């Protein structure tokens, strides 16, 4: 029995304006599993992701990481967050630091490593995302794809239990998407636990072990990737056909 890394139970989030973004979600993520969450805008995908590492406080429900309750008021949030990596849609690299320093920041200040050790680890991770040639560059001098790969490296460097991807390729040109997707794919193949929110249906089909389709704050359908070939629910059918039209 594979251990469950992330367990979300009855997650609900009501924003202060009254928007009921998430209306009771439950799902698990096993170790080494990559789960893709798809759905149209406003269906609550990003909210779920941000609730997992408590960047947004859930209104109701429980989130557990390795059997430890994340949204317990007494929990040490920072400790938990350092175990969950996150990659953002807008990359969110630290623009005043070089690529190398972006990676080593977390290692030195959260994990407490010395500079040399941190740089060693950083270089390893950067090699993995194929960014060794630009380690002294500033983020402002990088292309979108390069930035996102550095962001992935930054998340990886902390050796997280799971990585969350919030629409990693939505801000990229189609030409640049390829390198990022390749990186994520290789991560999945190596057995990293991942939750990916994405619009790339093909990518989801390719990489994800399980797909969750969200609609208006609830899980409309979930299952292995073949549900994209043969969707059961009406909503998913509509969604997929509208996505096909776009492409």
């Amino acid at each position, binding site marked *: 029995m594979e251990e469950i890394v992330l367990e979300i139970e009855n997650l609900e989030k009501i924003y202060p304006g009254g928007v009921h973004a998430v209306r009771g979600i439950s799902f698990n993520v096993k170790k080494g599993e990559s789960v893709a969450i798809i759905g149209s805008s406003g269906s609550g995908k990003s909210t779920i992701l941000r609730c997992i590492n408590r960047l947004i406080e859930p209104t109701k429900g429980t989130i557990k990481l390795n059997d430890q309750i994340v949204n317990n008021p*007494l929990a040490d949030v920072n*400790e938990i*967050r350092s175990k969950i990596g996150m990659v953002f849609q807008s990359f969110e690299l630290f623009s*005043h630091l070089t690529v190398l320093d972006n990676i080593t920041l977390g290692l030195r200040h959260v994990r407490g490593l010395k500079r040399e050790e941190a740089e060693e680890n950083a270089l390893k991770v950067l090699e993995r995302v194929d960014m060794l040639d630009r380690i002294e560059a500033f983020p402002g001098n990088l292309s979108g794809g390069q930035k996102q790969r550095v962001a992935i490296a930054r998340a990886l460097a902390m050796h997280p239990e799971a990585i969350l991807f919030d629409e990693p390729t939505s801000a990229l040109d189609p030409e640049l998407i390829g390198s990022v997707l390749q990186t994520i794919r290789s991560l999945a193949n190596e057995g990293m636990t991942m939750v990916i929110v994405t619009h790339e249906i093909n990518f989801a089909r390719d990489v994800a072990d399980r797909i969750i389709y969200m609609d208006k704050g609830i899980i409309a359908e979930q299952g292995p990737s073949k549900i994209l070939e043969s969707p059961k629910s009406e909503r998913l059918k509509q969604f997929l056909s509208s996505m096909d039209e776009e492409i």
Partner: protein
Amino acid sequence: MRLWDGDSGVSIVNPENRIFSWKSIPRSSRIILITTMIIVVLITPNLAEGYYESSWEQIEKNTENNYNSAIIDENGDAWVFGDNGEIVFGEKMEQWVNFESPTNENLVTAHANNERIVAAGNNGIVIYKEYNSEEWIEIRMETQIDINSVSINSNNEIFVVSNNGEIWCFKEDNWVEIESLVSEKLNDIVFEGERGLISGSSGLILGSENNGENWEIRETPDEVTDSEIIAIDFYGINRGYAITSNGEILKSTQEELTTTVGYNWYLKEIESENQSTSLDVNLTSLEVLSTTKILLSGDNGYIALSKDGGNIVTPQLLPIEGDFSINDIAMKNAFVGIIVGDNGTILYTENGGEDSAVGFEIIDLSDFSEFVDFTKDNLLEGLKATVKIVIFGILLGFFIGIALAMCKTAPTTLKQMIEGDLERTLTLFWVIIPSTIFCIRIYGLGLGILSLSGLIILFSLLNYYINKNKIEKEGFLSISIPNGYRTNLIRILGLTLLIGMPLIGKWEIKGGIELIYTALSDFYSFHLGSNTFKLSAQIAYIFAPIGDPSAFMRLILGVGVTYLGLLFLTTNGTFSKKYIPYGKLVFISLLWVIILAEIFIDPNSSGDKITSWFDLGWRLFLVLIGLLVTKRILPKEIKSVLKNSNDYTLTFEPWKIRPLQVIATLYTDFFRNTPLLVQFMFIHFGLQLGKHIQNIGLDLTSDLITISSLLGPLDSLLHPTIDYISESLFGPGKRSYLSAIFALGLNSAAYQCETIRGAIAAIPSGQMEAGRSIGLTYMGTMRLIILPQAIRICIPPLGNEMVNLVLNSSLASVIAYTELTRQGKLVVAITFQIFWTWGMVMIAYFVVTWSLALLLRRLEEKTRIPGLGISGGN
């Protein structure tokens, strides 16, 4: 200069790009810079061009005899008396001849009035001469005592004084001894009208009010009981001066209308001797030229002039060399006179003995180059003073500003403090704050503040080490309150906040309710408002805070504490919004009660048509406001009160307030809503902050010196350093300096805080998210990620702030700190060249401010992040 890399050593800026890196200056420039500095330091211009010369002219001497005494008689002729009975006559002080003397005894003292001249000396010799006679008549005393001083009273009777307290009077051709009741050596006697004064050894002064018939002892300061009062003199009816052999000057004035001069003697603190009471000269004689102008003579060729009654005593030059004694001074008026001394010395002056200035240019202030020469030192001093307060002001403002910005953006809500961090909050309220209060009460404010910081640091460190590396932190210091008790503990906390700690004496801590009650009753006792039931009648209470500042503090504290106390007491553990049913209706009704009271209750109606138009306008205005507020707050349809009573409920979220933000807002609201000029005056003259800081600083210095003295050999290095720093920061006259720094710094901090906060807000929230998602704490993300980027953003507006600060420093002139503007005022007062002076001041300010602006421009360039932001150019 590294920017915000904390201890991570992350090189934000490449070494080659650092602003003040020595290596970044090319070699040739470095050489030029060093050479210039050496030249400037070593070669100082030679300034002195003028010099002083003596105004004393020596009368050609024809003897080596000692001249002991001199007088100017009624005709303006000078008589000099010396050893071996020598008498020298100086007609109009121009022709000097020896005069036939009836005696060979040493003549040591002389006096002249409008009828006769008298001289006296050793072995009881007394000689006198009437004006209309050419001869000196001898009236030697039978008892051949050595006479020290002679004088004539208003009855033309001759008085002499001698050793052993002997006073003799020559009246009706006989020498009669006057009872003195003392046995000290008597040195000098003088009369003014019927008033007489005698001075003697052991600090003795005798006085007589009846022409010398009776003498009584006058009180002299304790410090002179060992001194010989050598000479004593009146000036007019309300001044008396005396000098001692130790170089001290005594002064007597007419104290009140009932006390005449000669009764109260006090020792003059001589400013020019650093407030010492002694000139360190063996004084021999004094002559009072005017109420404040005195000449003093002494051993070793000493002659000195004071023009301000002994404050500043300046030795004057003599045209002759030699260590002989000047024995007596005789002045015809304030300018013309002679001094006589040993070895036949007679010196004449027409200038009151004052050195004449030779070769000093008379500055023509209407010539621009001379004006600049004259004033540039002043303005330079002013510039230095301005720079001093500006630097400290900027530093203070910046650091306090950052702290305030942090407080304002700190996300810790009350809910987090109570729900998540209950243990820490309880420790704060039940342990740290009471101990601080007790500490302040017992040991004073300084130690109390220290103890507060110390305790906070101690507990934080303990907590950090105990909870390090724990996944789920276990409360505070490993004390975790079990769930069932938490809510009740919160309620108990609320209760303690309301009622405080009702112990006795200094162990009592007042609760919120009591604080409000005492504060309000203190305010009420001022009776600032009238008894009418309307708001405007009580408006004078707005000034109550300054009537009793401590009551105002108590009121604010009390309100805050009561609010918290009630909130905690009534909690049900959910920390959610609070609802007051029909709350809006209640609020609107209250509002209308106030407005209607304002409008209709009107005991002061004068009925005069003109004022009642204004009243009418005012009332209509109030009604208008009331209607607007009502429309805004109440729901549109009044009918809905039946359907949906929810519309009238007042909701608020008390748990969402952020305590740090509240405190920071109080600070910035105060400093941003009052003008800087008024703040300067309030801080310096009202709060006297400069004085208090000076006292704290001096206490601190003495403590440091005590500590330093225990360090043995290090002491010789530390002690002068501490002294020097203390002198330059807390020395006398530094009060306005300290006040200026604090007024500027604290004010600027409020503005800089808003600027920094704006810069922080400009950073995309994703940066904070990214930082937190790798596990950094809030402060960690701030320090490492947000602030480095925010600083770059806020450099232009902060530069603005700093320029403002430099220019606002000119306001320090109102608290008598002589910075550039005040120097300008002084220069204008001296030179009357208004345009030039203020023009130079403007140029000076421009130079300083512009350099700062250039510096900031360079800073902006150096700290630009490649690829980030639109800054013009690439």
